[in-house]
Structures are given as structure tokens and as C-alpha cells.
């Protein structure tokens, strides 16, 4: 049995992060306040990060919830990256007078000065609706003139203060999942170098979430529910956008109303695998492309032998064997929690069983054979 996230002894797991907070004393922290502006933090500092998250004036935590500061726009995505069942909260801020030019099929290119945050936390019990969340970290991406830079800002136990962590940490705690089972992840707070493991595209950092297809959904703004693309266009964050109905829309992986099994499985792979498995990402060396638009079955993994999978190949021969989830290395690696086998390589220590079931169902429905290996 491990510590509960909320017991006093949870200090142990978060201890490093908590002490690291004292580095704030070394820098000149910009106090958060009603008049703060994300731009004041100085976003083009050559890769250095503000000594305290509040300098970015993007979010704070109150009563177990991340609260966006006035200038930041919260957003959500249709199918998120799985991070050990973490609850997430995303915000974006663009410098005044700037906007994103709409593109239909690719990630949005944000202007210099943009700040994006994504906060990761866990309620004690995922079965409890609207339970307070213990926020572990807020990851900050800043579009500097030289490109995107990123750092995690782990939150202190009091949920008042977050300081950058260059080296990251693995945090262990427990929570109860939606099925009532106690889960104990080795949760990764990434080092600043590890950000590049997923975000680097031919060596340059990029954003992974914000795209037309991912943002094309409603969000419950303080002013009421509104489609995010429409909202962004209305408030000037997005230029040249069509009506949401004319924009692509990624299926919600766990909502059958948004797509069939294929669409939802492909959406899941798009959100959870494609950032590496594309022509320019970390997994460009494998020849396996897992975007939801990949049309060549072989490139998608059907009857494709693994390349440098090592023991992750298990005793099977192909990434995907149509109709045979149990013979498909892709599924095996989704189900594994061994560091040398599991996919994605980072940021997951628990099996996402519900998603594995979805992908299994998808493979089971594929037709064809690979021939005897």
C-alpha cells in the first residue's frame, strides 16, 4: 500500500517538488494579481523560465480546481493524451493584437509570445463527481522568438505556489480509479529535456494538442457554452476560421456518439501516438505512422514487422495483425507497463485499459491476413 495523495504523508512523494519551491526565493518573483499580464513575464528569455508560475499570470488553484486568470482562455480537446488518468486543464494566451491563422489539417501555428499551460492533477477518487483535485504540475509552453520552450511547474502541497523543475521527478501516490480500484502510478513530471521527447519535431519543439479537429467542440465558458473554434474566432484568437460545421472534428475516443470504433480508435492513436509516430517525430525511425489520416495500411502497422522494438516485439511478428488483437504488437505495447515495452514510452505508467479495449475492438474488426511469418 502506498500513500494516499491527500494524507499528510503524501509529503514524501511530493517532497522534492516542495523543496524545489525554495528556488523561488532566489529570483525576483512577479506577484500574481488582478492586473498581471502573461506578457509581463517576458516570454522571450532564451529558454529561461520565470521562477514562479504566477509570473505567467495564466492559472492559479482555488478549492481544488485550476482557475484561469482573466487573460487566459481555457480550452479542451476532443481526444486527450492519456497521462495515468490525470485530470487536465488547459489554457492559452496570445499577445494582444495577434491571432492564429486557421489551418484545417495541421496543428495551429501560434504567434511569438504565446503561452500555453496544461495542468495535471488527480482527485482522490475518480468515481466522485467534481471532487477537489490535487494538482501535481502545470506544464508551460512558451513560444519564444527562437521556438517553443517548455517546463513543468510542480505545485506545492498547499497548492499556492509552483516553481519550474529542470530535472523533473517521478512521483508515486495512490488514487481510486473509475472502477473502484486503487491505482499507484509512477507519475512522470518530465525534465525540461524530456519535453523534447514528445514535442520535438525534427528537433524543433511544437505544440501537440491545439488543432482544428481537436478544438472543434463545445466548452463551458463562464459566459456559457460555445464551440471553441467559434469562440476563438469571436474573441480574436483565431483568424480565417470557417464555421465549426465546416471544420474537421476529431472523434471523442470514449463517446460512441462521435464516431464508430474505427474513428475513435484512430482518434486515440492520433492523440496518443502520432506526436512521435509521424514522418518527423521521435519515431520517424520506425516507419510506423499512426496519424488518423494515414491511408497506407502497412505504414499504419498492418502486417508491418517492428524494427527496433527489441523485446517489445514479444513473440509476435507484426504491429497489427488484422482480426488478431492478441497477435498485434501495437496493442501489446499499449497494455504493457514495462518501461522497455510500453507505448507511449513516456508519461504513462498505468495501462489505459479502456483505450486498449477500443483499439483491440478496432483490430478485431480489420479484415485480411499477414501470411505466415
Amino acid at each position, binding site marked *: 500500500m502506498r500513500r494516499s495523495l491527500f494524507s499528510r504523508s503524501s509529503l514524501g512523494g511530493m*517532497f522534492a517538488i516542495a523543496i524545489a519551491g525554495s528556488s523561488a526565493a532566489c529570483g525576483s518573483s512577479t506577484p500574481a494579481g488582478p492586473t498581471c499580464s502573461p506578457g509581463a513575464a517576458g516570454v522571450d528569455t532564451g529558454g529561461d523560465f520565470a521562477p514562479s508560475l504566477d509570473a505567467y499570470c495564466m492559472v492559479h488553484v482555488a478549492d481544488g480546481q485550476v482557475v484561469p486568470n482573466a487573460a487566459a482562455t481555457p480550452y479542451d480537446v476532443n481526444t486527450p493524451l492519456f497521462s495515468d488518468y490525470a485530470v487536465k486543464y488547459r489554457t492559452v494566451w496570445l499577445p494582444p493584437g495577434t491571432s492564429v491563422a486557421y489551418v484545417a489539417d495541421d496543428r495551429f501555428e501560434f504567434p511569438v509570445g504565446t503561452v500555453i499551460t496544461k495542468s495535471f492533477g488527480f482527485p482522490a477518487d475518480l468515481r466522485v463527481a467534481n471532487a477537489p483535485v490535487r494538482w501535481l504540475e502545470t506544464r508551460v509552453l512558451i513560444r519564444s522568438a527562437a521556438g517553443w520552450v517548455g517546463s513543468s511547474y510542480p505545485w506545492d502541497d498547499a497548492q499556492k505556489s509552483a516553481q519550474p523543475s529542470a530535472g523533473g521527478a517521478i512521483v508515486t501516490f495512490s488514487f481510486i480509479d473509475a472502477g473502484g480500484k486503487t491505482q499507484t502510478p509512477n507519475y512522470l513530471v518530465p525534465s525540461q529535456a524530456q519535453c523534447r521527447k514528445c514535442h520535438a519535431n*525534427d528537433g524543433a519543439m511544437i505544440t501537440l494538442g491545439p488543432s482544428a479537429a481537436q478544438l472543434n467542440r463545445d466548452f463551458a465558458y463562464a459566459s456559457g457554452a460555445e464551440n471553441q473554434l467559434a469562440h476563438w474566432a469571436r474573441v480574436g484568437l483565431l483568424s480565417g476560421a470557417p464555421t465549426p460545421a465546416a471544420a474537421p472534428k476529431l472523434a471523442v475516443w470514449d463517446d460512441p456518439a462521435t464516431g464508430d470504433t474505427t474513428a475513435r480508435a484512430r482518434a486515440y492513436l492520433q492523440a496518443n501516438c502520432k506526436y512521435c509516430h509521424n514522418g518527423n517525430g521521435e519515431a520517424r525511425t520506425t516507419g510506423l505512422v499512426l496519424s488518423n489520416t494515414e491511408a497506407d495500411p502497412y505504414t499504419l502497422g498492418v502486417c508491418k514487422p517492428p524494427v527496433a522494438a527489441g523485446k517489445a516485439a514479444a513473440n509476435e511478428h507484426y504491429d497489427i495483425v488484422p482480426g488478431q488483437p492478441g497477435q498485434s504488437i501495437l496493442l501489446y505495447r499499449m497494455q504493457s507497463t514495462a518501461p522497455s515495452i510500453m507505448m507511449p514510452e513516456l508519461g504513462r505508467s498505468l495501462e489505459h485499459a479502456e483505450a486498449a479495449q477500443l483499439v483491440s475492438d478496432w483490430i478485431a474488426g480489420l479484415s485480411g491476413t499477414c501470411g505466415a511469418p
Partner: protein
Amino acid sequence: MRDSCARLSYSLGRRLVNGPAGRLARPDKLLAELDLTTGPFELGRAGGPPFAAAAPSPAARPLVYTLEMAFIGSLPPLPGGMPPGARTRRLAGGFACLLGVVATGCSSSSPSAPATASPIGSSSPLCKGAGRCVSIAANAPETAIAGAFAGVKDGDTLAFAPGTYEFDNQLALGAANGVTILGAGQGKTILDFHGQKQGDDALYAQSVRDLTFQDFTVQDSPGNASKALGVTGLTFRSVEVKWTSKDSKSHGAYGLYPVQSENVLIEQCAISGASDSGIYVGQSQQIVVRNNEAFANVAGIEIENSFFADVYGNDSHDNTAGILVFDLPGLTQEGGHDIRVHQNVIKSNDTENFAAAGDIVSLVPGGTGFFVMANHDVEVFDNMIIGNKDSGAGIISYALAQMAFTDASYYEWPSKIYLHDNTFMTNGTMPDLAADIGLVLATGTSVYPGGNVPDVLWDGIADPALPAGPNPMQICIHEPTASGVCNMHFDQLDTNAPDESKLVVCDPAPFDCTLPPLAPVTFPGLKP
């Protein structure tokens, strides 16, 4: 507030560098002085009673030691015990704090803290040259080391003092050029990843220029011991990689793993135990692998889908296979070519294949000296190929992998392969019956010269688009010491009832030709 961080780091650093464990005493007394219910963050507050005495004076040190002990001891005992690594993580923050000090330029607030006392400092006897020196003391906590790796700047040397460093996370390098990662020597600086919980690679770098790893040991990584993706100018020098578990199937896949890199030099390294390849260079260009030792891996050295490689002076022994030059379909870079393999000792590679069955190297029989699969323009000469019980040197096509592919640009046959002047001795004495290829080879022992699998064999599978002939693939062989030079005629093999005794043709005449010698690999900065 300004100097509290520095003092905390300093004091923790003193303990870790100089404080023998036996001096950590009296936790109870200090417990009473600290309000731990407010969390450890409070301990960093300047001016509080505990830290008032923590100024860097000799008299203060004992108090600091006990303070830290109290810190640890104050936490309620965990049911089931302390998780591995918990203590290290707890201490880690102090050093991340120190990094913060350096980064924000307020290190001047602790002027009397000697650099050598800090877990991350700025001088090391190991550092040479003009760049910044980032010294890493023994027992420096993981978070601080990872922070130093992430915060690396152009030209830095990161120097590990002698000692064993344990990691529970991957150690990833930030984006900086001209960086050297230095240890005090193989077996002296040991980076131990047996507890690694995140990441398929232990050491990881991507998309940088002129990166050197030198003089340390990496051991027991669950996945690859290292991976360098998209690095131009990459050196591994005198790096040891090993796995200590007797369960060889549990070992990580690759020892040294450059991929899609250019100007790669691997020299004087020692790699053992990899469950795929000890030294694996994939999809790279301009490669020199020389004077290394690889043993007890599945493949000692593998060059895959690569261009312009010079593999020489290595001792590859007691692996499943000594040296492999492969080309595989479905990859970004295909058509491996211009590979020189010379002056290596390829000896007694008789270890049972312990790769996962789906892994491509699992098809290689235990007892393989040298295989070239696909590739063109490969020159293999002046090697000692001795005591590899399945076969000495094989020239094969991807067809032997028996796996379908749909990659139209892939060329699955070996061509323009030149083997000459190698020394063969006592190979092929016992084909590996656990491998398909070995099983087939074993069916011909009644007709093989001397009863052993011939030292040099070609699988006989030729590109059907070429004009038929005795040697369509331009394979040239001049091997006076070989027990046989044979066409195995796998092209005519009945896979249901293989019988090499009816197929094999041992006749060097078709291969009696020469090819122009390949040029040695050169690239900027490479010394002879």
C-alpha cells in the same frame, strides 16, 4: 528570502559529499524544533531558527546534518516500507534549488560555499578544454543531475565524479551543441538504471551536434542503455554498457544506439548482455566503429540501414552473432551501402539466441560469425572468424526473414559484396537447430566439405529482374582459408522438407572476382 535557497543547498550538499552516514544523529531533538505539518517548503524560509545556524561555517555543519536526518525521520513510516528511491527524491529538491541559484545568478549569496561541496558544481579535474564545466558529485541526487542535463549549454562538459548514480527516470539531454558527458572511467563512474521507471532509453539525446559520451559505465537499463537520435558528430569513447542480471531475456535491447545520426564514432567501448545488439547503428551515415569489445549480446555489432560505415579492430565474441550488416524494409533510410568490416576478431559467437521471437535478430542462429543481409557495396576483409559453430560468414537476402513487406523502394538482395583475406577456423561445427536457418543448414552436413557448414555461404536468392547466371549479385570471394564457398540455393528450398544435401553447391569459381576496394570512412574531426 534571497539566500535561503543557497544555504539549504549548501548544507545538504555538504552532507552528501562529506557527511558520513554515521554522523547523522539525534533526529528526535530537532524534530521538536521544526514545524513539519506545514510541509518541507517551510524549511527553506530564511531567518527561521533551524537555518539561522545553517550558515556555512564549520560550527554549523553538525546541526545541518542532524537537521536533515530529522527531515527524513519526521515522516510517518509508510505501510509496507519506504518505496525504493524515496529518500533520494526527498533530498533532490535541495539540489534543484541549487541549480536555480546558479541559473538566476544569485549564487553570490553563498560565497563561502566551496564548489567541490556542491552536488552540482563548476569545477572537476575531469574537465578539460574551454567550455563550461558542470561537475556532478557522487551521490548527487537524480533531480539535480537531470536538471543539469536539461539545462546544458553549448560547449559544456558534464563531469561525473567516481561513484554509482542510481536513476528512476530516463536521463535526457537538453538541446545544446558541443557537449561532453564525462565520467572518471569505466567501472569508476557507474550510471545505474535498474530502477528506471520511465523511458525506453536510459541516456537520451536528440537533434544536437558534436556530442561525446566518454569514460563511464551504464548498467541495467530496462530498455536501451543509450539512444542518440539525429545527432551530427556523435562519439562514444570508452563507455561500458552491461547488464548484471542472469536473466538475459530481461536485459535491454541496445547498448549504444545511434540512429539517424551522422559522423558517428564508437571506440574503445565494452558492451555486454544486450538482448538485441550491443552496438547498434541504425539509419545513419559516416560511421566508424573501432576497437570495441562486444560480448554476450545477441548481436555484438549491428550496422543497419546505414551508409558509409567502417567497422574495424573490434573484438566481438561470445555473442549469438558477431557482426551483422542488415538492411530492412519500411524505414526512412534504406539501401545500406559502403560498409567496411575489417581486422575484427569474430570469435566463438555461440550464445543461444535470447532475443524476443518477434525481434528481427531472433532469426539469427546462435553461432553466427558474420551476416550481411541486403545492402550493397560491402567489403569484408582481414577478419579472424573463428569458432562460430553455426556458420562463419553468410550473405543473405531479406527473404530469409520470411516476412512480407509492401515497401516498393526496398531492395531485399545483397549485391556487390566482397569478402577477401579473412582467416576462418573451425566454424559451422554445430548449426543452431533452434533457428530456422540453422535447421536448414544442418540438413547438408553429409555433403559439406569436412562435414561442417561452409565458412562462406550465399543463400542463392537473386534478384529475379537480373539476368540469370552463376553470380548475378556480384558477390566476390577470395578466401583461401575458408572450408567452403557455397551457394546454398535457398531459392530452390522446399520449406516443408528442406534438404541442403541436395541443393548446396560448393564451388568458389562463380565468385572468383574482385571489386574495387571501398574508401575508408572519414569525417571532420575523425582521428586515424
